[in-house]
C-alpha cells in the first residue's frame, strides 16, 4: 500500500475509523483539525500519516473549540475541512458549529459516539448524541447527518458528507459509533475518477462589482454562492445576524429573513438530501427504524422474525438528519406499529413519534454494548402478537 496517493483504490480490510480517514482523503480533504479523543483517535492518527504525504494539512489543535473554529476559517479560505471527535469534544464544537451554520461554511465532522453523558464510557459504544447533533448549538439551523453501519459506509458517508456540505453550505456530520469505528471489514475504494465530487457554487460576479451581495441567495435552492479569502471580493463574514451584504444587521426583520433561509434551504430540499434503505417494507405490518451499528442487529432480528412468519420490515436510516418524516407518515398508513431500537434511552424514537399516531416502541440500552438482535427480535414478536 502506498501512502503517497490520495485515493487508495482497491479492496482493503479497514478499521471504521481508518475508513473515515480514507473517505476524507478520497474526498480531497485539504485540512483536518482535531483533538485526540477516544474512540475517534484512529481517524486523526491515520490522517496525520496520510495528509502530509499528499501536501494536505493535518492539525492537532489545542481543543475542539479551536478545531471547529479552524474548520470554518479553512472552509472560507476555500479548503475542504474535516474534524473527527466523540461526544465530549462534539459538545465543545457546538459553539462553532453554530458559526459554520451562520457563516454558511461547508465542513464535515465525524463523531464516533461513545457512552455518555459527560466522560461516560470512553472506549464503549453509544448512540446518544443524535439530538445533540441536531439541536446542540443555540438557535434555529439545519444540518445533515449520516449514520454509517459499516466501515464501507464510513468511507462512503464521509464523501457524501463533503459533497452535501459544499452543495448546501452547511456543517455535515457523520454520526458513527464506537462499534462501527472500531470494527474492521472490507472497504472497496473506487478509482479516483469515480469518486463523486460536488463543487461549491461560486459567484457569477467579478470582484469589485458593487451589485454583488455575497449573502444573497438568488437561486431557488436558497444557497448563496461562496467567496473565498484572497479572491479580491473583500467581503465580511459575520457570526452576528447579517444582511445580504454580509454586514451586521441585528434587527428582527433581517434576522427572520436570514434564519428562515438557513433553515429552509434544507427543509425545502430534504427530498434531495435524505437517504434510507428499505428492507422487507413492501408487505410489512410492522416497521423497525434503525441506524448505525444498531441497524445491523435490527437486520438480523428482522430476518429471524421473517423466518417466524412475522411481516416485519426495516427502514434503515442513512441520513438520520433530515429524518425521513414523509416515509414515516406513509408507512403509518400501512403498518400497525414502529419499533425503534437504539443505544440511548429514546432519541430517534421520539422523533418518530412526531410523525405518526401509531405506537412507537423503543428498544433501548444506555450504552457500553452494542444493541443485540435478541431484544429487538423479542420486541418484534411481542408487538406482532399484540398488534
Amino acid at each position, binding site marked *: 500500500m502506498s501512502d503517497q496517493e490520495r485515493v487508495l483504490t482497491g479492496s482493503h480490510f479497514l478499521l471504521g475509523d481508518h475508513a473515515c480517514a480514507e473517505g476524507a482523503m478520497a474526498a480531497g480533504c485539504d485540512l483536518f483539525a482535531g483533538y485526540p479523543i477516544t474512540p475517534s483517535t484512529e481517524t486523526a492518527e491515520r490522517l496525520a500519516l496520510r495528509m502530509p504525504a499528499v501536501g494536505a494539512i493535518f492539525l492537532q489543535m489545542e481543543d475542539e473549540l479551536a478545531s471547529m473554529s479552524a474548520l470554518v476559517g479553512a472552509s472560507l479560505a476555500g479548503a475542504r475541512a474535516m474534524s473527527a471527535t466523540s461526544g465530549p469534544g462534539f459538545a465543545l464544537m457546538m459553539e462553532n458549529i453554530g458559526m459554520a451554520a451562520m457563516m454558511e461554511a461547508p465542513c464535515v465532522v465525524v463523531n464516533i459516539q461513545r457512552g455518555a453523558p459527560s466522560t461516560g464510557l470512553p472506549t464503549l459504544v453509544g448512540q446518544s448524541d443524535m439530538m445533540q447533533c441536531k439541536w446542540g448549538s443555540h438557535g434555529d439551523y439545519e444540518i445533515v447527518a449520516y449514520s454509517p453501519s459499516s466501515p464501507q459506509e464510513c468511507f462512503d458517508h464521509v464523501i457524501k458528507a463533503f459533497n452535501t456540505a459544499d452543495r448546501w453550505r452547511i456543517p455535515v456530520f457523520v454520526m458513527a459509533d464506537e462499534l462501527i469505528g472500531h470494527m*474492521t*471489514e472490507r472497504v472497496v475504494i473506487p478509482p479516483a475518477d469515480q469518486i463523486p465530487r460536488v463543487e461549491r457554487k461560486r459567484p457569477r460576479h467579478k470582484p469589485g462589482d458593487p451589485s454583488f451581495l455575497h449573502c444573497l441567495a438568488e437561486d431557488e435552492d436558497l444557497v448563496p454562492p461562496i467567496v473565498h479569502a484572497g479572491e479580491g471580493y473583500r467581503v465580511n463574514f459575520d457570526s452576528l445576524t447579517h444582511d445580504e451584504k454580509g454586514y451586521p444587521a441585528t434587527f428582527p426583520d433581517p434576522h427572520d429573513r436570514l434564519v428562515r433561509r438557513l433553515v429552509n434551504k434544507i427543509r425545502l430540499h430534504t427530498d434531495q438530501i435524505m437517504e434510507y434503505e428499505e428492507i422487507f417494507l413492501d408487505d410489512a405490518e410492522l416497521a423497525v427504524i434503525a441506524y448505525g451499528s444498531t441497524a445491523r*442487529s435490527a437486520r438480523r432480528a428482522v430476518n429471524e422474525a421473517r423466518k417466524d412468519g412475522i411481516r416485519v420490515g426495516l427502514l434503515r436510516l442513512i441520513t438520520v438528519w433530515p429524518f425521513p418524516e414523509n416515509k414515516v407518515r406513509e408507512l403509518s398508513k400501512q403498518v400497525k406499529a414502529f419499533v425503534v431500537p437504539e443505544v440511548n434511552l429514546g432519541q430517534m424514537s421520539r422523533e418518530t413519534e412526531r410523525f405518526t399516531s401509531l405506537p412507537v416502541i423503543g428498544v433501548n440500552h444506555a450504552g457500553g454494548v452494542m444493541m443485540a438482535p435478541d431484544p429487538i427480535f423479542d420486541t418484534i414478536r411481542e408487538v406482532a402478537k399484540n398488534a
Partner: protein
Amino acid sequence: MRHDIRVAGFGGQGMLLAGLLIGKAAALYDGKEAVLTQSYGPEARGGASNADVIIDDDPIDYPLITRPDYFVAMFQEAYERYRPVMVKDGILLIESDLVKPWPDEGPYRGIPATRVAEELGRRIVANVVMVGFFSGATGLISAHAGEQAIRNTLRPRLVDLNLKAFNAGYEYAKKQEAS
C-alpha cells in the same frame, strides 16, 4: 455459513494482528465476508486481549461474537475465561506450552507457538505461527490467502520472517494431522 472465531491472549502477544490477518485473508483473498472486532483492558501490555473474527459466505449483520465456534487460546487466563462460552463441539486451538487444558477437556489441538517462534529467531511472531496453525488446522482461511494477508499488512522488512512463521505453524498442523 457463519464461523465465529475468538483469538485470545494477553496484551503484547499480537492478538489483534492475528485477528486482522485471519479476517483480511478471508475478506480480501478468499472471497468471503469477514468482520473483526476487538476488546482489550486499559493496560497496553499484559492485560487480556482478544480479537473476534467472523467469517461468512454471506454479508454479516450482527458483528459480535457471544459463543465462538473456534477458540484460539494463547495463555491460561484466556482459556479459562472464554472456554466456558465456546459452543459445544467447538474447535479449540491452544498454545500448548502456555495453556494446560482442564482434565475434562474434549478433543483439541495445540502448538507450542512461542517456542516455534523462538526457533525462528523472534518470539514476537508467535501470533503469526498461530495464524498459520489456525489455517492448517481449520482450513477456514487458505494458506495462499494467509500469505497474501501477511505480504499486504506487514512492513516489507518483516514480511519474510512472518511468512516463515505462518508456514511453520501451517506445516505443524499438517504434520500433526498426518501423525
